[in-house]
């Protein structure tokens, strides 16, 4: 089979799994999970340096930004202005224009504020950023983001950190069918089968953090996610059988004794 790659904003990747770097017990465990996952992109957050203890270990000591694509995110931002400010700093710190935009609406659900998200997408695209955008699983909102300059649409499968799995396959599928940029499920994956479901629906990839970081054995779960994303993708490419209401025997009826 030909090499199955996907591209976002002209950059090609082989792995369709993007992993986060939050909530791990240690940077070492994070790096081991990354290796097991085969991911080529990791999300990172931008935060104040601790100026009273600047010699603390840093993420970049364990995960090399020259080997892995860092995708700076705007987690924790509740307004377009905060998100834009954060990403301008991220671009200055690392030089990356491919970014993950998320503008949250409230702490309880961490649901995106789509009005602010759309506004931030327009501004960032205008400043030359390539925003991959976390959004609601709404096919109309997805189209609007694409028009605003999103280079990838990243609908939630379920609330961030909930591990509930894809709650609405119908809308995720509608987004995939309507999009002309990559679609990645971002948030809500709890276990390997959830990732496979996203890929079987035709998504270009899956982004997850907590499902791996909070597994009892994160490195083993990272390996499971790698396999499930690959399996889901292959099943999508293979084209699943049609569903029937009743049984259909697999062995021929002719020649029965």
């Amino acid at each position, binding site marked *: 089979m030909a090499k199955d790659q996907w591209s976002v904003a002209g950059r090609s990747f082989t792995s369709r799994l993007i992993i*986060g*770097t*939050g*909530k*791990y017990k240690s*940077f070492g465990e*994070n790096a081991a999970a990354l290796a097991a996952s085969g991911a080529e992109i990791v*999300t*990172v*957050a*931008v*935060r*104040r*340096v601790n*100026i*009273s203890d*600047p*010699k603390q270990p*840093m*993420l*970049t000591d364990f995960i090399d930004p020259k080997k892995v694509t*860092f995708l*700076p*995110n705007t*987690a924790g931002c509740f307004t377009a202005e905060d998100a834009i*400010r954060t990403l*301008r*700093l*991220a671009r*200055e*710190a*690392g030089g990356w224009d491919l970014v993950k935009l998320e503008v949250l609406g409230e702490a309880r659900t961490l649901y995106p504020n789509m009005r602010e998200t759309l506004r931030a997408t327009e501004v960032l695209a205008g400043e030359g950023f390539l925003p991959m955008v976390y959004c609601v699983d709404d096919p109309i909102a997805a189209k609007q983001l694409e028009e605003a300059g999103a280079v990838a649409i990243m609908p939630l499968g379920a609330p*961030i*950190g909930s591990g509930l799995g894809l709650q609405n396959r119908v809308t995720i599928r509608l987004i995939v069918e309507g999009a002309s940029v990559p679609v990645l499920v971002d948030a809500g994956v709890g276990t390997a089968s959830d990732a496979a479901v996203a890929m079987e629906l035709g998504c270009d990839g899956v982004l*997850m*953090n*907590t499902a791996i970081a909070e597994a009892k054995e994160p490195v083993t779960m990272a390996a499971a996610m790698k396999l499930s994303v690959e399996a889901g993708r292959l099943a999508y490419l293979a084209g699943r059988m049609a569903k029937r209401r009743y049984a259909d025997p697999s062995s021929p009826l002719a020649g029965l004794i």
Partner: protein
Amino acid sequence: MKRKTAMSLDGSAGVTINGERRRVAARTSLAQLIAEIGLDPLRVAVECNLEIVPRSTFETRLVEDGDDYEIVHFVGGG
């Protein structure tokens, strides 16, 4: 908004870094300030009074009285 601090007699500047007040010697460059804190300038980004400071200007930019700095880096996140 730029915070106005009374100029000290020795010419040192009163600045805010990540929300903490500090005094720095007169004519300190931003590169010197970053080194004084103990940071690697290649791994941080700096904002001064809400404006990004390009890394290429760290050496030449002088710290001024009342400057409000945000110094950030990448940490783990989802």
